């Protein structure tokens, strides 16, 4: 991570945050655990006021123009407030914001139409950033606050999913470079970080509602491969992956699926951990209590 990701205000580090729709509903555990973990590590998170949906897959799929217009509104809200970096927790929101910004900056005519609609053109002053790098950086800086070896016995199959696995020019998202930092952190906690084969395979969340049989097959294979490699849990970085990996998990031998942010919350011993874990569809508590982790 680069230090400039964070602005220092009165010695405190502030980060502007675009939540997105899943994070306020089915992905609430990710947002709540992120916010508590961030504050534990000394990050002050400011939510972008009056944010609106990025349009996700449906907008660019069937109404191309809305695929630019919807993210642009949020970029403009951020630009008007002088925000240089707008952080997202959801990889899909990130890609939509990045894509709209790239396309509008490259096309004056379209940007003019944005100006006619929302009152300003996108100038590129705000850059979307993904949460992982800045969070890992503060976590590693304050790693002494985490008990070494507290994850002994946890055998993690990290699951990055599609968007975090692409080359940077494809999605604007660099999901590869944070992995070294992640490895360092997990080593400190003495969790096993497995190579298991499907960490970069798509889980099919985009068709989870409309083609459940497809995502069921993809998700079953993910659980199966992870289990075969000796994992006792999956760790995810995306609210859509989490939902899909739990909802479409095979009825037998499903692995618990933890958000990376929950993992940090457990490591830091934060008070609401049990509450989030209680909302999971595949109960992670038996595993965590058996290993005396949480």
């Amino acid at each position, binding site marked *: 991570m680069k230090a400039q990701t964070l602005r220092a205000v009165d010695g405190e580090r502030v980060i502007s945050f675009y939540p997105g729709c899943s994070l306020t509903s089915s992905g609430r555990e990710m947002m709540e655990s992120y916010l508590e973990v961030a504050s534990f590590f000394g990050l002050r998170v400011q939510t972008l006021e009056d944010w609106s949906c990025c349009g996700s897959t449906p907008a660019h799929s069937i109404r191309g123009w809305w695929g630019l217009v919807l993210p642009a509104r949020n970029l403009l809200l951020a630009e008007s407030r002088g925000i240089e970096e707008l952080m997202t927790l959801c990889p899909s929101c990130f890609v939509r914001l990045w894509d709209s910004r790239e396309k509008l900056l490259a096309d004056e005519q379209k940007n003019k139409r944005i100006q006619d609609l929302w009152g300003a053109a996108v100038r590129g002053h705000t850059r979307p950033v993904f949460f992982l790098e800045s969070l890992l950086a503060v976590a590693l800086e304050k790693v002494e606050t985490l008990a070494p070896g507290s994850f002994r016995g946890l055998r993690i199959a990290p699951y990055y999913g599609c968007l975090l696995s692409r080359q940077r020019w494809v999605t604007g998202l660099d999901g590869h470079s944070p992995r070294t930092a992640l490895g360092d952190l997990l080593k400190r906690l003495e969790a096993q970080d497995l190579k298991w084969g499907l960490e970069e395979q798509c889980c099919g969340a985009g068709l989870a509602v409309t083609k459940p049989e497809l995502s069921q097959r993809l998700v079953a294979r993910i659980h199966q491969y992870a289990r075969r490699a000796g994992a006792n849990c999956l760790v995810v970085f995306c609210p859509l992956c989490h939902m899909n990996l739990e909802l479409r998990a095979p009825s037998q031998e499903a692995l618990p699926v933890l958000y990376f942010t929950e993992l940090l919350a457990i490591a830091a011993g934060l008070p609401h951990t049990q509450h989030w874990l209680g909302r999971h*569809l595949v109960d992670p508590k038996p595993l965590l209590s058996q290993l005396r982790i949480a």
Partner: protein
Amino acid sequence: MNREFQEQVASKGDNSFASCFHCLSCGAGCPAVELMDWRPNQVIRMIQRGMKKEVLESRTIWICIGCFNCLDQCPNRVDIPSLMDTLRHMAIEEGVRVPEPGILAFHKEFLRQVSNRGRVFEVGLMMRYKLATRSFSQDMGTGVRMMLKGRFQLTPSRVENPREFKEKLGGSS
């Protein structure tokens, strides 16, 4: 060969598909290829051969999940996900038969939510999608489990001025 369709597609988006040399990487790594009637490179070949009706009525353009695996793997950087967007837009404009009405219904309901409140209300989206596709029995159990676990927000969240948002967005297409 009829080049009209090929030129029409290229004029709407980028024409990176012209450099496809059919190495089959795209379909080989595609997580959803099993539900497609044509592999992504076959769709490109069909565009080049002017098979407009077959392309616009294909399942492939609706099944593409947008995971970018094909683009990431493509030696010629053919932007297949964006090509699929263009083809879907054309299919809608031309009013052709959509072989995956459920997927279109889901996208439409999602955008209806966005346009009404500026944000998506997941419970409302699911209910309306189920109504639109008459598929209430499917996933009822999982929906109830999610509800009981407190995984859904039960009241919709909105932008500050939904009416203004809707007017502006609706007037822009």
